């Protein structure tokens, strides 16, 4: 199936105090907005401007941290506007080289269930679980329906942040098939480590225990953050996910959850990872075809 092309509004440039420039590409989420941010931040990274401390792409926006003693924020904004007008979109023949990863998730697990029951007073629907609520407001007859939708097509990491290594993932399906939920009315003060969470149109895995505002649907047996770097996938970095990774969330049962946990504890667990490349333009034109290819490569 094909999707309608989304036209982005002019970017909005804002100063986050004296040390940050925030650029909103669109108020709404779309792959087009994310790819536009990728184009500009890639170009900015290549320029290596003195005084740029960090470049932080986000879902439909991006942020640049600067040292204002070395770089005037106004000069940076001028440069970002120039980049927006010259390289503001990915060319049609742009090929994204990335990896596709199998990420197992136990939905309706006992640990997030225990936690969500403690915070019903902060939830939109205190009488339902987070997953029951998500199924209902997205028009599914059952929890299984919403789980099937989340696990049938892969997701792309469109932002890293909140805490180290947390991947914000956007599903590679047209808007009308995206699942959406609000965040908690008031953020929780507790979320278990490795919670599979959902907020807006984004799926996440919480790297560490802590506060959180996303709905809690399940738990991943494998970590996305490993400070000890004892697992082979963490040899080079304490965080596993990278920007633009394609993640396939796969529903598992308790037996597989426990088996994977014991592999993690023994230090032998490895994610199933395959190198892939695809054209974002092709993905936008025919997401189902590209998704089939991505999953075919992953489980070949």
């Amino acid at each position, binding site marked *: 199936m094909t999707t309608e092309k989304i036209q982005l509004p002019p970017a909005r440039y804002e*100063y986050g*105090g004296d040390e940050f420039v925030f650029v909103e590409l*669109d108020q709404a989420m779309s792959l087009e907005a994310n790819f536009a941010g990728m184009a500009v931040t890639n170009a900015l990274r290549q320029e290596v401007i003195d005084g740029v401390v*960090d470049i932080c792409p986000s879902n439909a926006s991006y942020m640049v941290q600067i040292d204002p003693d070395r770089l005037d924020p106004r000069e940076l904004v001028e440069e970002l506007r120039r980049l927006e007008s010259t390289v503001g979109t990915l060319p049609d023949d742009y090929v994204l080289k990335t990896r596709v990863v199998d990420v197992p998730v136990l939905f309706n697990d006992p640990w997030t269930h225990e936690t969500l029951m403690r915070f019903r007073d902060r939830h939109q629907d205190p009488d339902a679980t987070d997953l029951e609520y998500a199924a209902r407001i997205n028009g599914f007859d059952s929890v299984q329906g919403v789980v099937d939708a989340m696990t049938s097509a892969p997701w792309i990491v469109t932002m890293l942040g909140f805490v180290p290594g947390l991947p914000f993932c956007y599903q590679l399906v047209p808007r009308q098939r995206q699942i959406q939920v609000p965040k908690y009315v008031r953020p929780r003060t507790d979320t278990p480590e490795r919670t599979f969470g959902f907020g807006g149109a984004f799926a996440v895995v919480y790297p560490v225990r802590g506060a959180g505002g996303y709905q809690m649907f399940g738990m991943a047996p494998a970590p996305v953050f490993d*400070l000890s770097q004892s697992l082979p996938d963490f040899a080079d970095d304490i965080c596993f996910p990278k920007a633009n990774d394609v993640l396939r969330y796969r529903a598992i049962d308790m037996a597989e959850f426990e088996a994977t946990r014991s592999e993690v504890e023994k230090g032998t667990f490895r994610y199933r990872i395959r190198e892939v490349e695809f054209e974002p333009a092709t993905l936008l034109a025919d997401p189902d075809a590209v998704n089939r290819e991505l999953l075919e490569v992953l489980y070949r």
Partner: protein
Amino acid sequence: MSELRVRAGGLYTTVQDTGRFGHYHMGMPPSGAMDTYSAVVANMLVGNPDGAGVLEGTYIGPTLEFTDDRVVAVTGADVPVTLNDEPVEPWTAIRVRSGDVLGFAMIRAGCRAYVAVSGGIDVPVYLGSRSTYTLTGIGGHEGRKLADDESLPLGAADGPGPGGAAVPEDLRPDLTGTAQLRTVVGLCSYRLTEGGLASFLGTDWKVTKDADRVGYRLRGGTLDFTEREQPFGAGSDPANVVDLGYPIGSIQVPGGDEPIVLLNDAVTGGGYATIGTVISVDRDRIAQTKTGDAVRFDSVDLDTALAARRDRRERIERVRSRIAR
């Protein structure tokens, strides 16, 4: 190797320096001393480089025993400091020898005291910094706050130093009264109604008990959001936006009645509308507020923010030249 004995860790004491930069894009905040000015000046007093490791004590400071000849200085919050139970001057370089014990009484004003020791607190450098980030247990002393009865490594000092150098009164921060936080309004401030923004700037906000190195939650008013059809991917609550990056110092208002100012251990992004950013210089000031203190947000433009930054740098250089004399 020489060490500093921690007899009592205090309420929440961590090793900090000027911060860990370049990892915000993967979700790691800079950490570092919350009150930069006080930490840098403390290092200056004892002859350390500006970015040497210092201790940041919160509310109740640590009790520290020295094991060799050093120079120590305490800056930041207004708190009585003692050496072997005798009062000593804050904002002043003090010579100490083996067996001397530095202690703190209750804070009179402010919230965070900084302790610099000549040679610096020499914990291992992690990703370019000695700063502690407790949420993930990174950096500092074992990634956590100090406990009672443990030791910290000290770096080599260039001789014991003369001691006696002091920061003049007019170069010490004024921590009394309502904290005025100069703020660049913007980011997603379009989410507030005109009245909401006026109320944000016109309210005396009180610091709640949820105030730590990640951020400060405030109470005192209610802000109205403009009605809109929520954009795709944001979530249905009026405070929800498509998840985006949060600048250090940025202010968000989940629910409309509890502004949160993010600080050095900030969460780096999320899905609540941000409405402005406290300028970098005034993060020093909010870091010296505690539960129950009042803060106000003053809207300023970028020029004012940059000028304030230049002013702080000049003040630091004035301290440096006064101490060198």
